[in-house]
């Protein structure tokens, strides 16, 4: 049973466009949603995160939109750059201390110059 789902599996955008990555979840106990960026041969690194009490979080060109009622969120990458080409993982974690961070299936983004 997949608790965190992502779509699309892969995405290609032109440099300067906005890339939109989607994520949905099932567990109502999840209250923290980080997005991780992973380059080939490296471990994932935290990009941006949001708590369930917020509906939007912005950090530079990266914005998370969160809809708690529908259990959906999305990551928008504005003015995409070739250096943004990577795999992006949506993840979720429950409020109970020490619980596992559950990753989604990932979206591979390719930005063409």
């Amino acid at each position, binding site marked *: 049973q997949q608790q965190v789902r992502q779509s699309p599996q892969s995405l290609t955008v032109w440099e300067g466009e906005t890339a939109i990555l989607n994520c949905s979840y099932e567990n109502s106990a999840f209250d*923290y949603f980080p997005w991780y960026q992973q380059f080939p041969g490296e471990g994932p690194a935290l990009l941006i995160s949001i708590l369930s009490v917020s509906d939007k979080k912005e950090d530079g060109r990266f914005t998370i939109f969160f809809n708690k009622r529908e259990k959906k969120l999305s990551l928008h990458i504005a003015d995409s750059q070739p250096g943004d080409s990577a795999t992006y993982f949506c993840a979720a974690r429950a409020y109970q*201390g020490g619980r596992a961070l559950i990753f989604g299936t990932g979206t591979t983004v390719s930005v063409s110059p």
Partner: protein
Amino acid sequence: GPKVLQIPSHQIIDMGQMVTLNCDPVSNHLYFYWYKQILGQQMEFLVNFYNGKVMEKSKLFKDQFSVERPDGSYFTLKIQPTALEDSAVYFCASSLLGVSQNTLYFGAGTRLSVL
């Protein structure tokens, strides 16, 4: 930022052998994790560890798997015996606290090839 080191970066072993993957977590972190990733795809949770104990484990954490932090420094994942399906990249992570919004920092992974 904080660094998690994993040694070695690649390990090749024969099926049935024992393997130990080593992780040097961020120095003041208290919570430790292992994840498994196949072919650059989904990061699958294996286990988390705090205060010398396994706190939570997934169904992927088979009986052949064990974790410990024997000397208070390296956090290890041992697989004994190994199976072909254990071939994957194993990522170690650590966090300072266990609260939900505390950031997990990941190492670069150890690629395990079981022949």
